[in-house]
């Protein structure tokens, strides 16, 4: 935790000393299933995420995208299947264990606590403490300032404002900023531009590209086909809880992608 806190914000710092082979598999999900009562939310989902790639995850509502995300986040535990990180099978049983593997999720509703201030939200669940009890406010503020400067969040001088006083774009940037605080290796974003204006959306797309530059591998759940084609290297298509296709963007055109989403066929 301490090393995370002290690490710099220079590009690539997340993976110093790591093999930068672009085709190295960072995450592999094999045959993962999840059932909620009568609902089979995920069935035999299989895909992989490569080093420093941006993988778009597409599918209609109810296709299982959010459940997949929450399984990787450790919020839900998979009923069956195996998850590999760096080629090693791992057990994601809790949010903490997911975080320990370097996975960070940016939720669609951003996962911010509205009544709390900016530093607290950046460090939510991982507040740095002395003796396990006393909050290290100064450390949090310094690190927050670093991250905010890096994100170019405009008009946010006073860190003590509660998050519900920020604009939509500022909040989104903050939610993504959380991945910068911890230098995450695998970043999963759920509809990062869903509620934003054009300008703010462009800022967020830039941030996602930057996450990749800094060494993270990124999964982006999105409904926006333009973003899929402009941003992603590969795409994972989900339908009715199954992974129906994973392929490079260059192998698909928009019509084929829509067909895959709607019909599950290619």
């Amino acid at each position, binding site marked *: 935790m301490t090393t995370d806190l002290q690490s710099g914000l220079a590009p690539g710092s997340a993976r110093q000393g790591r093999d930068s082979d672009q085709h190295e598999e960072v995450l592999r999900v094999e045959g993962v299933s999840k059932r909620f009562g009568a609902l089979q939310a995920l069935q035999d989902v299989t895909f992989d995420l490569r080093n420093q790639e941006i993988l778009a995850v597409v599918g209609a509502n109810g296709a299982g995208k959010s459940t997949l995300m929450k399984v990787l986040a450790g*919020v839900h535990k998979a009923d069956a299947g195996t998850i590999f990180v760096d080629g090693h099978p791992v057990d994601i049983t809790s949010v903490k264990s997911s975080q320990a593997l370097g996975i960070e999720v940016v939720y669609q509703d951003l996962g911010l606590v509205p009544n*709390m201030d900016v530093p607290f939200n950046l460090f939510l669940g991982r507040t740095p403490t002395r003796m396990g009890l*006393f909050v290290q406010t100064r450390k949090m503020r310094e690190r927050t300032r670093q991250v905010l400067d890096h994100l170019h969040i405009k*008009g946010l001088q006073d860190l003590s404002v509660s998050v519900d006083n*920020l604009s939509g774009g*500022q909040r989104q940037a903050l939610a993504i900023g959380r991945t910068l605080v911890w230098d995450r290796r695998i970043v999963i974003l759920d509809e990062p531009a869903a509620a934003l204006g054009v300008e703010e959306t462009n800022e967020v797309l830039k941030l996602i590209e930057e996450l990749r530059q800094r060494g993270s591998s990124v999964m982006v759940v999105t409904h926006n086909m333009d973003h899929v084609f402009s941003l992603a290297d590969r795409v994972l298509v989900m339908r009715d809880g199954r992974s129906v296709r994973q392929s490079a963007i260059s192998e698909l055109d928009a019509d084929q992608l829509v067909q895959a989403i709607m019909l599950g066929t290619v």
Partner: protein
Amino acid sequence: MPRSAHSAPETSLGRDSATGANSSQTSSGESAGSALLSRRRKAFADFPSRVGPQVQGVVRANVAFIALAVLVILFWILGGSTFMSVRNWEIILEQCPVLLLLALAVTFVITAGYIDLSVGAGVGFAGLIAALGSQHFGMPGLLLGIVAGTLVGIANGGVFAFLKIPSFIVTLASMIILRGALNIVSGGQAVYTDQSQSGTVGWLTPALQYPWVVIVLVVPFAIMWVLYNKTVFGQNLKALGGSERVAGLFGVPLRLYKVMAFGFVGLIVGIASVANLGQIGAASPQSGLGMELDAISAVVLGGTPLTGGSGSVTKTVMGTLALVVLADGLTIVGIPPSWNDIVRGSLLVIAIAIALDRRKIGIVK
């Protein structure tokens, strides 16, 4: 809460100048410059009416201080030197410890968005255990009361967290059960701390009298202020009150925090029960009766919202003092005790009517 001080409705300019930071918060659709300009123009146009809301904001944020000041001045006028005598203020302070401890503890669970109705019955029950303990083991036996209070709190938190029953129901049931247990164990009789029935408890009774009582009041307050404002425990409880779901998504151990919050209340209830015993010298079936409502009143009067997410232990102290001053003042003025309740209830409604910023709340339930 400093925030609510300058978040008076529609004084967006006032708020901007107060924090200097939020100027772009409402301008997602337009450029910040033009938004500021139009807002400034608007603010200038209705300048005279802007003063009102700003004053309202200050009043809202400080209703506990104002209530206390108004009560003191009122009873000074009505009660004269009897009320303003040194001896009377000593009495006021001596009446504070039990209620203050309970109100401070309850502030923590209310901040997290929960409620604890069992603290009054807890004081009675833990006090009984402490009295029985001291009969057998002398002064160290009082510790058994603190242990009993803590265990009751942990049980409350455990049932709440693991059986997922609302805290209101859990602690309501707990209150009823504890009252029943208190009646059964005490046999409906007062249980003295020793056989001499002297009504004093070792060094404890003098410690709860002036001037020592000041320490008994200040030390717990200081500890709880630090706990509430400077520790991860207090911060995460505020986060739970703001959004328990989000806190859970980011790995705040919800069940642990629920058990810890109610366990903490239980610990303080245990300590309060010993203080109560020190003042009265005996545990009776009536001990702590209605104290849960006094404690919640003090918290609410202080301005901590029952919806959770924010609060202030300092204002809880003011709320507690206001309630104690009110009871004391009414007695001095010669108003019968039953009227005390009516005045107290009315004060609560008036204070909240002033303090509540309804524009921040969509629906009031």
